[in-house]
């Protein structure tokens, strides 16, 4: 089941737009993404500033083309 959670997180981390969309309406986003219910609590509890910062940081690094 961790595969589904990883895929969900990769989706959020791969685009700032996805992250913002998730933060706007978490429940609807999670439902649309088809995340198994067992991970619902985990992703609803994500700290908004932390994931926003992480997503922006990934975006910045992608633009710099630095892989690490």
């Amino acid at each position, binding site marked *: 089941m961790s595969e589904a959670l*990883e895929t969900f997180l990769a989706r959020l981390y791969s685009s700032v737009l996805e992250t913002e969309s998730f933060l706007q309406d978490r429940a609807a986003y999670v439902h649309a993404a088809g995340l198994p219910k067992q991970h619902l609590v985990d*992703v609803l509890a994500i700290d908004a500033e932390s994931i926003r910062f992480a997503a922006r940081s990934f975006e910045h690094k992608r633009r710099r083309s630095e*892989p690490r």
Partner: protein
Amino acid sequence: MWGRMRRGLWKLNEAARDRVGLAWRDELAVDIHIHLQDIDCLEILADREFCASRQRIAALRELARQVPLSLHSVALGLASSQPVDEKRLARVAALASRIEPDHWSEHLAFVRAGGFEIGHLAAAPYRPETLEGTLRNVERAQHVVGRLPHLENIATSIRPPGSLWSEEQFIDAVLQGTRTPMLLDLHNLYANAWNFGRDPLELLRAMPLEKVRSVHLSGGCIVRDAAGNARLVDDHLHDPPDVVFELLQVDGAQATCGLTVILERDGLFPDFNAVLRQLSLARAALARGRAQQALSRSAAA
């Protein structure tokens, strides 16, 4: 395959002494060659060499004969419940076979899942399914490349959602399950300590230091998030802060064999004399750690 003789010689060296060097960057190439006598080891970023010309590969192979070389891979995505990228793995294996480095390394990170490319290193949830996948991926990597990688801790600004363990518990479980050596990135460790309100020394001591064979040193900067919280970003564009050398000293006092220490810098390169000074600081920190280690061993005896 990998040069047997060189491997044997460097294996002896690895047990015998610490090595301090830096990550190869084309911008630093001339200075690196001029000061090669002051550099004990080098690191090559594998992903940048996948499309290297025959001439460049020959040059890297020659370099690997002059100085112990680490082949550092960044995008295999080993720490994942999902299978490692086989094409990338084959490329790393081909590169290792052609360059014959001293050892190779990868991060304990996932970089893609379900068709989504993150384009950077992310921490997967620290939980049993991730551990099982990681063990499978590392075994597969060993089979394809021919040797176990050194596995590196990463910096993360978010505690992986769904985690059941701490970062250090996860790392310890992976290293135990795979018997891989650890590449300890001290700035990544410091960044995680900073961002999660932990004492870096306490976090360092919680790591399996007896398994550390190589170390990364780098720098970063403080960035404020939208809520005004100060966060430390590991950007490889700044000098390593003093605390990184202090952590290196502690690591040196605990390490059970010779350490390969690599200074990493990805841009905003300072004058090369400043780079050499940082290598000297690293050697001095290691020497202090080793002296402490000798003292405690003689006291115990």
